[in-house]
């Protein structure tokens, strides 16, 4: 054997030795929109600090995530780190022994009980995901169109419809960009967006859980009555308009207002070449308390069957650290870190959304905690009902009665 060959062999042996020490953690997520941000900012920041641990971010499509994740977990092929949906979907995974108990993770002390609420057992004892981000609902609008038509941010419901009517009258732009094709946008950006104003946020949400309020009570039915009016402002063929269609219509400057969740901010910043503003869900009368949906949306936990629990915990502790919060809040404007230590948000639009936390009462989406545990699943039913009401194929009362009937069929407190 020649010397060079020996040398090459030796080198390659040494090389594989060094490689073998590296542990690669695979991260499961539904945020396929964030792939670039993870690869460009979050992963390099972590890997620089923790040599020997590599991260591999492998997202799937949002609507299929739960289905794909569950089958992967059952088959034992899921990644080491699992991005957690809030509440029951993740609780079921924890109770099924798929997610590890994180009660002894040091980083957990950085979060308040409210922040942890979406990923903890019903008794509050065992957290199983590190809270990562919340999203806030409201409306994003095209400032240039508003200026051109001489419009101002509406604060009351009457002003809101006034603005919509003026845009419609002018005829150049679609007043509001939303479709009902994918159904979830009607419930999430419609019902859960303006809803808290009518059912008074946490008051109405907890009353539903305790059984003190019903989904066909006026404060809930009224939300559908409002949604039913939206159909007129959504533009031609909104019935077949998909979620990405709506995003495109708005960012191309063809629509004036976009009923939104703050998660749109980072995507829109890259696409829209006009200035954007945002206003919170309008209130009934000037000076009324405003309510916003400030939903605990993303957590991150550990696959109980991971082969690298120590490395996974190192990563989770880093996610719980202020350092991650800072990267996350600014790399992904529109997702608000849940850690107790406040983080400065530099993106103006994202900061606008966050500022409502000081003026308005916060709540989370009404159908997420406990109420979507049975069949029919309230969240999925809400999608369908909201879309039907906007299209006018179901009246607000019919929709509300149907939801209540479905919920009462399996939820004891509502029987």
């Amino acid at each position, binding site marked *: 054997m020649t010397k060079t060959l020996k040398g090459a062999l030796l080198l390659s042996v040494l090389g594989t030795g060094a490689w073998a020490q590296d542990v690669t953690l695979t991260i499961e997520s539904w945020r396929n929109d964030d792939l670039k941000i993870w690869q460009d900012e979050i992963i390099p920041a972590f890997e620089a600090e923790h040599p020997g641990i590599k991260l591999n971010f492998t997202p799937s499509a949002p609507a299929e995530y*739960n289905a794909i994740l569950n089958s992967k977990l059952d088959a034992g092929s899921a990644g080491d780190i699992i991005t957690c949906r809030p509440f029951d*979907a993740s609780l079921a995974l924890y109770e099924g022994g798929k997610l590890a108990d994180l009660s002894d993770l040091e980083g957990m002390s950085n979060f308040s009980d409210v922040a942890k609420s979406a990923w903890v057992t019903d008794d509050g004892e065992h957290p199983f995901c590190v809270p990562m981000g919340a999203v806030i609902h409201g409306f994003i609008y095209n400032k240039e169109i508003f200026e051109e038509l001489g419009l101002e941010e509406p604060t009351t419901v009457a002003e809101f419809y006034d603005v919509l009517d003026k845009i419609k009258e002018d005829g150049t732009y679609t007043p509001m960009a939303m479709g009902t*094709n994918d159904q979830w946008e009607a419930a999430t950006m419609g019902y859960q967006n303006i809803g808290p104003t009518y059912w008074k946020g946490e008051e109405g949400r907890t009353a539903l859980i305790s059984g003190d309020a019903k989904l066909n009570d006026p404060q809930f039915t009224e939300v559908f009555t409002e949604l039913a009016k939206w159909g007129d402002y959504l533009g031609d063929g909104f019935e077949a308009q998909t979620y990405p269609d709506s995003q495109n219509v708005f960012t191309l400057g063809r629509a004036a207002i976009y009923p939104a969740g703050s998660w749109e901010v980072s995507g829109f910043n890259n696409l829209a070449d006009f200035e954007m503003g945002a206003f919170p869900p309008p209130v009934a009368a000037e000076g009324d308390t405003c309510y916003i949906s400030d939903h605990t949306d993303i957590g991150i936990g550990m696959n109980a069957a991971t082969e690298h629990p120590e490395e996974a915990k190192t990563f989770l502790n880093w996610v719980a650290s202020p350092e991650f919060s800072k990267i996350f809040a600014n790399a992904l404007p529109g997702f608000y870190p849940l850690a107790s230590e406040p983080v400065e948000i530099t993106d103006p639009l994202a900061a606008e959304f966050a500022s409502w936390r000081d003026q308005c009462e916060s709540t989370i989406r009404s*159908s997420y905690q406990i109420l979507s545990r049975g069949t029919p699943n309230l969240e*999925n039913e809400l999608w*369908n009902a909201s879309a039907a009401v906007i299209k006018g194929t179901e009246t607000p009362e019919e929709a509300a009665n149907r939801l209540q009937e479905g919920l009462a069929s399996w939820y004891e407190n509502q029987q």
Partner: protein
Amino acid sequence: MGRIRWHVVVFLAPAVLVYTAVMIFPLFDTLRLALFNAEDKARIFVGLANFKRLFLDPIWSEQFWNALANNFWFFLIHMLVQNPIGIALAALLSSPKLRFAALYRTAIFVPTILSFVIVGFAWKLILSPIWGIAPSMLDAVGLKSLFAPWLGKEEYALTTLALISVWQFVGIPMMLIYAALLSIPEEILEAGEVDGITGLSAFWKIKLPLILPSIGIISILTFVGNFNAFDLIYAAQGALAGPDFSTDILGTFMYRTFFGFQLQLGDPYMGSAIASAMFGIILIGVCIYLFGIQRRLRHYQF
């Protein structure tokens, strides 16, 4: 007797093992799983309770019957549109006077080899009220008023999807019938010609009766294919089979139930019950065909 022909066993074994492992065993396991349910995380035997829920409990039965009715409509459109068009195309292609027959044959067959996902998304884009070319093309010939967001309206969505599927798969009956037509011996047609049967009447009186067995096979293939359909609806409308479940067929209903969707968690037991019901429906359909129709078809030998 008594001598086992070992070479037969050896040659059959791989196929038997593979089919047992990937088809027969999973099938029976699905049927078995449909008889269980989870209670406090323990799997317990519940007999036919899952089926009782599926057929009688309003929450489940409404969805089930809706999906089944939609499935029948989906199948009916294929039978009434796809197969006659396929036969007509085959008849035209087999005409010796037609030039460029090979080109047409290929062009019509191409969509069949495309993936459902491509077909679903391509048509979704074509028909989109915002970006689609359908509205502007209709506008160009003055028929804009006919345009509607077809995939977004409860009344039209399922029919639209069925027609898209017809467009994609019309090549299959066409090829099968084409092959059957080509296999008809010249002597028979010539004998007909001598008796004065030519042109269209030759098709109706001689060719059609001879290809009836092929049409039967195509019908049963269409039936099995349509009642197992899933991909196109899923690609175009998602697992919720919107708008308002108007395009929900058994395949999408089972997918949603078995694997779960968005916040709804998967329920393998009810999912298996639906899968078993689908299996039963297809089995009944195939039996009706085999015993009711196939046995009455006369076969001709030349």
